[in-house]
């Protein structure tokens, strides 16, 4: 495992208006907890972006490369695809390269239909479910090309949570037990799964709220609880990477806050990639930010550099609210 190798693309050019504050946070492999908050908050004034205080108070103690996205392009050959920017034969994602690290939250921001979700879905090969989608380039998980991993195994290591809270129409307990069970069987029995299920609920910060009604239908929970149940479900299989596709967009501010806290807490256990339309949210919880526009990764860097002193004009416009 490699520690903190600089990402290969569009990295901040040190001799071209490099933000003095943002640089040390990213280039030094061993970040100290004290450095980070100062650097991230101190570099705000370059644009008109104003944000609430960041949720993460200190940088993660470590970061290890989990996934590498290498020069990935995804295009939809037919007009049957679900997501945006996929007119016949058009590339939804164009030669994007990114690292995904455990210990850090990677946020993908950008306007609708710019390939964020497509890129996210390609990380656990969900794009293959879309007819006519084709992928070029290479995505590796711990150094292994993901196309060589059997899809269900891959998706147990790289799990995903969706925009809509979508618990299955069964009890809270069964929602998680279902994920842990093999194939379509009912085994192992409830008793044997109790430990892992409660553990997953605990990690998602939901256990205290639902301990009394584990047998109640999951769809009776509130929206925020449902979404945390979905996160618990995704965590139950002990994944290495957790993909979040706008997990808070259907939720109220309070539930959003709970989930954001949860995401920041989780980043030490799993690598977290979050797609969000909400710039404030990206600023609050992310360590690294990738700005995607029309399928291209326009800018990638630490949250301080992308929001504080973006290199590209398009990024500057976007984070200052000129379009989006």
């Amino acid at each position, binding site marked *: 495992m490699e520690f903190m190798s600089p990402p290969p693309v569009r990295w901040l050019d040190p001799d071209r208006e490099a933000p003095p504050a943002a640089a040390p946070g990213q280039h030094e492999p061993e970040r100290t907890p004290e450095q980070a908050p100062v650097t991230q908050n101190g570099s705000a004034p370059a644009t008109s972006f104003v944000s609430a205080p960041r949720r993460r108070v200190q940088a993660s103690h470590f970061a290890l490369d989990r996934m590498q996205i290498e020069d990935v392009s995804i295009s939809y050959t037919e007009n049957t695809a679900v997501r945006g920017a996929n007119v016949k034969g058009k590339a939804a994602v164009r030669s994007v390269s990114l690292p995904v690290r455990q210990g850090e939250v990677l946020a993908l921001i950008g306007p609708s239909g710019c390939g964020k979700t497509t890129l996210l879905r390609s990380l656990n090969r*969900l794009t293959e479910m879309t007819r006519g989608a084709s992928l070029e380039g290479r995505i590796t998980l711990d150094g292994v090309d993901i196309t060589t991993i059997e899809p*269900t195994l891959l998706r147990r290591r790289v799990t995903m949570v*969706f925009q809509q809270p979508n618990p299955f129409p069964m009890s809270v307990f069964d929602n998680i037990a*279902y994920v842990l069970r093999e194939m379509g069987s009912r085994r192992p029995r409830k008793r044997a799964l109790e430990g892992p299920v409660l553990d997953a609920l605990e990690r998602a910060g939901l256990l205290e709220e639902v301990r009394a009604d584990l047998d109640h239908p999951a769809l009776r929970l509130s929206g925020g609880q449902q979404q945390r149940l979905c996160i618990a479900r*995704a965590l*139950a299989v002990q994944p290495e990477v957790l993909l979040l596709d706008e997990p808070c967009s259907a939720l109220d501010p309070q539930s959003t806050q709970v989930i954001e806290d949860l995401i920041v807490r989780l980043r030490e256990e799993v690598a977290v990639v979050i797609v969000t339309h909400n710039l404030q949210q990206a600023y609050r919880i992310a360590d690294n930010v990738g700005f995607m526009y029309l399928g291209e990764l326009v800018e990638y860097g630490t949250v301080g550099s992308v929001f504080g002193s973006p290199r590209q004009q398009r990024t500057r416009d976007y984070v200052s609210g000129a379009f989006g």
Partner: protein
Amino acid sequence: MSGEAVTTQTVIARHTRPVEASSTWRRTDRLGLAICWLLGLLFCAIAASIVIFMMVQGIRYLSPSLLVTRPTAGFSQSQTGGFLDPLIGTVVVALLGVAIALPIGVTIAVWLTEYGRPFALARAAESTIEMLAGIPDIVLALFGLLIFSSPILGFLSRTSGHVVFGRSFFAAGAMLSLVALPLIVGSTREGLQAIPAHIREASLAVGKTRFATIRRVLLPTARPSVITGTMLGLGRIIGDTAIIVVLLGATLTLNQAGGTPVISLLKGTGSTLTSFIYENAPTGEANQPNKAYAAAFVLLLVVLALNLCVDVVGRRGRVVSWSS
């Protein structure tokens, strides 16, 4: 301009009275309304008169003893016995038909909705099912007779020497399952299609196989639709006459074939309530109209009860819904 005026009017109207007065409508609209009322009432009147007529006639002739005595040959009401055998026959035929149609129908529906590949074959199967729904049952009956009279299928009906009788509960049940099949397929497909795509992806995205997703998430969610389709199919099977008359033999009593307990019954011939009514109607061979009325009343009650079940299940089924 006029649009605004209308809007204001409706707002005011909503405040003053809950329903818009039809007296303010144009003449053509009022005429349409009158026709709707007329046709609606006519329809209700026809349905009600059938039910009430059959009830009055049926209750007059129906006695509990009819339900438990077997039909016998005779020339008067007192000699001809009851309709225990047709009642048993109806139950057997219905169970047999559903037992064949349900697994096949659900499998076809799952294949069409969840896989749909190979594309051409799926489309062909789709239109075949639709065509099947349109085939008159007397045609199915004749075709069934042809099939089940073939020597290869001799084990499914009575045989004497090399001649295969071709008429049995097996034969009737198999052909009747074709009558129920389109209803089960249609209803199940509808139920599956109503499940949002992100539910399937949520299951796949945590490493579950397609099979597990279908078995544990999709089919349980679509269960109300499956039950509705089965009930409707059951209603069709119970009410079918042509296939029974042709394929179940012209005997009013159960005539078992062979010695094995259950198999002999299924290989044998018999009657159902519909064929009993057919035989006993004024135009039939037995010509005992009173018995026909009583049996028709029982048949009507069974079918009405089934329809009630469909309603109840349909209403219960709406509980499962995701916030959209």
